[in-house]
């Protein structure tokens, strides 16, 4: 069952309406919005309302795989196409035939691979690696990105012809902080979901004060962050304690830093020196309540803050080239992607 598009805001109502009007067209669609806003949920809703809903929905994350691997994932390969290709492998285009191919993080696809994708979109055909024979495909392409592709075109990182071919329909999902009226129905929905998943837990809806606090928070990680907080509270304690904790929660212990609210630009990129600023000023009353003290928690917050600022700094200096950034930071590419997601590091818009 598809996750419904939850929300009462005008922007979500408009997206629901748009889905109804375009889901049966099979026209290429690009879904944009910050990390965690629910781009895949919109893609699944499009699929669910389309005549293709009984066919496969295949997802590929273009940022998670190195270029060569992504190419073979998308187009497949013949036996002997390269060293180690011991048997033929079907690509995602073949697997998604007559269904939907959801290309997540399309803005991170390499330029040469963009040319190959363009060829498929123009001709409806592709050749698996090591094959001279073109295979026909009828695949509905829904792409998603948290980058502004228009900027990527200007910097020479995204093909203009591919942009126009993909961008036949564009769906922008606003960040959660721009539509706080969607928070109560989202909380209700996830409480219901988690209650059914953890049936030994009695989950109560937050009281109005706690809900006000949730609605006032800026949610840099958007719905994904809201889900994580609800899950975390579910594990930690019951809802009575949770609502109290939310109301009294010191701002400095909230799971974010102000730098993630606004887009890091060269002028606003935090310096590494800022990372050594104290998390709390123990003398101005901004410190956590004594019963909220936990050295382990404080250590984790401090470490997260320093790591986040270091990663943001390097990503900014490398123009968000994740591959280069991971080499500079001396961590694996996969670890970097995990940290970007975990620490809610938002790319520049």
């Amino acid at each position: 069952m598809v996750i419904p598009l939850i929300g009462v805001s005008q922007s979500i109502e408009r997206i629901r309406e748009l889905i109804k009007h375009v889901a049966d067209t099979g026209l290429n669609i690009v879904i944009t919005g910050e990390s965690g806003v629910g781009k895949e949920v919109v893609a699944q809703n499009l699929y669910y309302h389309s005549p293709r809903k009984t066919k496969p929905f295949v997802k590929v994350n273009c940022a998670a795989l190195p270029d060569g691997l992504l190419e073979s994932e998308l187009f497949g390969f013949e036996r002997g196409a390269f060293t180690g290709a011991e048997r033929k492998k079907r690509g995602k285009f073949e697997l998604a035939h007559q269904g939907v191919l959801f290309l997540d993080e399309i803005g991170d696809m390499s330029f040469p691979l963009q040319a190959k994708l363009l060829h498929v979109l123009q001709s409806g055909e592709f050749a698996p690696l090591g094959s001279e024979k073109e295979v026909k495909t009828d695949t509905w392409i829904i792409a998603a990105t948290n980058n502004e592709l228009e900027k990527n075109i200007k910097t020479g990182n995204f093909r203009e012809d591919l942009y126009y071919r993909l961008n036949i329909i564009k769906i922008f999902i606003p960040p959660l902080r721009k539509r706080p009226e969607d928070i109560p129905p989202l909380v209700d929905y996830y409480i219901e979901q988690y209650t059914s998943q953890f049936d030994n837990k009695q989950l109560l809806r937050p009281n109005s004060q706690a809900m006000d606090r949730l609605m006032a928070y800026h949610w840099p990680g958007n719905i994904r962050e809201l889900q994580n907080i609800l899950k975390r509270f579910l594990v930690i304690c019951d809802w009575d304690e949770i609502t109290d904790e939310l109301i009294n929660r010191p701002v400095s212990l909230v799971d974010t830093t102000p730098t993630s609210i606004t887009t890091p630009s060269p002028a606003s990129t935090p310096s590494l020196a800022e990372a050594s600023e104290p998390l709390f000023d123990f003398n101005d009353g901004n410190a956590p309540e004594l019963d909220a003290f936990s050295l382990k928690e404080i250590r984790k917050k401090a470490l997260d803050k320093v790591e986040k600022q270091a990663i943001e700094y390097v990503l900014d200096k490398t123009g968000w080239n994740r591959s280069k950034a991971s080499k500079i930071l001396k961590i694996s590419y996969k670890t970097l992607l995990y940290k970007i997601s975990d620490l809610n590091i938002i790319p520049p818009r």
Partner: protein
Amino acid sequence: MTKQQTILVIDDNEDVLTTITQFLSQKNFTILSASNGLDALKICETEKEAIDLIITDLVMPSISGVAIISIVKEKYPNIPIVAITGWGEHPESLAAEAKADIVMEKPFDLSHLHNIIKKLLDGK
């Protein structure tokens, strides 16, 4: 007396929309207008019997003119469409691929647009 013909004009640029709709009103057409693709599709659904011709911009936020052409040509193939654009070769070739009857580059002469409309409506 002959029935006034109805034209749906779609453009997200209010100035362009006003200029075209005012000009065509003076030429005795009944005008429907939309400043975005979603509203345009809704009008197409409710007024499909009445619309004789569509003029659409190509590059618009959300639902592009190319999408409107594809959808209209699929659902209502007898409605001729004039595509107008100021965004160069890529949208133009996509509009032609989507079977727009005419693709015009901005800026254009309004009397030229009028001649094209007359030809398309005479050929219906």
